[in-house]
């Protein structure tokens, strides 16, 4: 399954959750599949979607927070796994869409092909860690994760569409933040 379809599948299971999307195609695919005020689109600040998700989850335990992260993003901020494990917010689900490349800059490889990010999450001490391959039922795995007490970590190995040309997010950044905060 390619990332765009994986994201569309995940969004079909989302209800009132707050979603923080990593920069690049993850934000673009989410925006184009189903824009909603409770989506925060990171445009720059690679690596920091997971930090924002953790900060939000701590700030308001009543909010269910989902992070749509990427392998390149997580590798840039791998220490966040240790922070999530230590703080252990029950309302945080960290989904990593792992296509083993920096997709939006042309598909250059990351190093995730030679290691397993779900093992890193387990090693840091995150409780619910699930890994799914490209042919498995990722929506069911995501629903299951949402139903359980967090923190959850869901690694989805996805494919890449080399012809992907998903349009950019066309909402001004202050509006992305303001409507998310209001929602």
């Amino acid at each position, binding site marked *: 399954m390619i990332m765009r379809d994986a994201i569309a599948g995940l969004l079909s299971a989302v209800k009132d959750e707050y979603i923080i999307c990593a920069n690049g195609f993850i934000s673009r695919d989410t925006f184009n599949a189903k824009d909603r005020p409770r989506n925060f689109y990171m445009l720059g600040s690679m690596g*920091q979607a997971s930090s924002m998700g953790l*900060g939000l989850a701590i700030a308001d335990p009543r909010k269910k927070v989902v992070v749509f992260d990427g392998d390149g993003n997580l590798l840039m*901020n791998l220490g966040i796994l240790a*922070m999530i494990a230590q703080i252990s917010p029950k309302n945080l689900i960290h989904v990593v869409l792992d296509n083993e490349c920096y997709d939006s800059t042309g598909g250059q490889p990351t190093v995730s092909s030679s290691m397993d990010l779900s093992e890193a999450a387990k090693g840091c001490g995150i409780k619910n860690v699930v890994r799914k391959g490209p042919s498995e039922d990722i929506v069911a795995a995501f629903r299951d994760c949402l139903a359980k007490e967090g923190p959850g970590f869901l690694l989805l190995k996805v494919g890449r569409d080399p012809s992907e040309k998903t349009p950019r997010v066309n909402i001004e950044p202050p509006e992305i*933040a303001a409507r998310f*905060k209001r929602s």
Partner: protein
Amino acid sequence: MDAQGLKKSLKELGFDFFTGVPCSLLGGIIRALGDDYIPSVREDTALGLAAGAYLGGRKPCVLMQNSGIGYSLNVLTSLNLIYDIPVLLMISYRGFGGKDAPEHIIMGKHCVELMEAIGISSRVCSGQDLESALAEADGQIKNGKPYAVFIREGAIS
């Protein structure tokens, strides 16, 4: 200014989310904050955490050494400043006046102008002037802007 007094001033201004990466000059305030302080792995991660907390209704403060400005510039310029996400930066000032360990000299010379270059207001404090700097910071933060308070050695007892 003593650490308990600084903590009280911060709380009175409504700051209620504290994270960062420590510096020996910030040891006292981090100790005073106790469980209110969340240790971050890196300064940019701390800024990310603070941004999320802000969107969740909190008023965040990030503590760091000025060496952390390097890691922070990307998040300040591509998150805080473009989305109007405010944060109070409390930055210990190593290398002030060119007197410190070698790793602090260059950042010590340029940290204030780095903030100015990206459009973040700042003030260098050495003690009781912290109070008025925090009041000024609060005004900027209410307008959605980050503000940096530089803290010299001995400013917090």
